[in-house]
């Protein structure tokens, strides 16, 4: 049983396209996150949702739009893809709200924009 799953695992696309990455967790957690890992392995949080409500929205271009249809799913839609969007995107989830809890990460989606 995969705790946090992401699809697709790899995504190769052209500049200007729109793409989505999906994330699902079966841990019963309340909070989900999207992280971006750049080519230097630096990990930075992008968004977080708690019970379908946006609670963290870092300085991210508005071409990136998260959507949480229910607390087990958090999808990331990216419009007008740019070369600089090439990275690995990780989804994560955690149990509680309001305090720092252990985050469980998905396997990542490797996005390459040509």
């Amino acid at each position, binding site marked *: 049983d995969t705790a*946090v799953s992401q699809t697709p695992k790899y995504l190769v696309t052209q500049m200007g396209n729109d793409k989505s990455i999906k994330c699902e967790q079966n841990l019963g957690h309340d*909070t989900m*996150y999207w992280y971006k890992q750049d080519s*230097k*392995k*630096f*990990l*930075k*949080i992008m968004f*977080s949702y*708690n019970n379908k409500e946006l*609670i*963290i929205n870092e300085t991210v271009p508005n071409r990136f739009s998260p959507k949480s249809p229910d607390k087990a799913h958090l999808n990331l839609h990216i419009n007008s893809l740019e070369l600089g969007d090439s990275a690995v995107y*990780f989804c*994560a989830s*955690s149990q509680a*709200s*309001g*305090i*720092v809890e*252990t*985050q*469980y*990460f*998905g*396997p*990542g989606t490797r996005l390459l924009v040509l």
Partner: protein
Amino acid sequence: AQSVTQPDIHITVSEGASLELRCNYSYGATPYLFWYVQSPGQGLQLLLKYFSGDTLVQGIKGFEAEFKRSQSSFNLRKPSVHWSDAAEYFCAGGGSGTYKYIFGTGTRLKVLA
């Protein structure tokens, strides 16, 4: 400002040797601290965490870490490294009342046979 720093970008050790990976933090109060490992092409796996209490925490795969408030450090250690430990290691921290982790920049561990 809150921060987590990993001073070593790369570390190379021989198989069987001991290992210490450094992590320094800057938080107003006692932070929650974590170590994660990322194997090539994989996601992040939690090795261990410190929330409070005993300052020496044990993790999976034979790893341990010690929280030292006086040095603002949370270094990861392993007495004898195995070739399969070669990976990227991330220290992360979070403050009470926040959902957010701040990750260090990672330390890449290479293990020589």
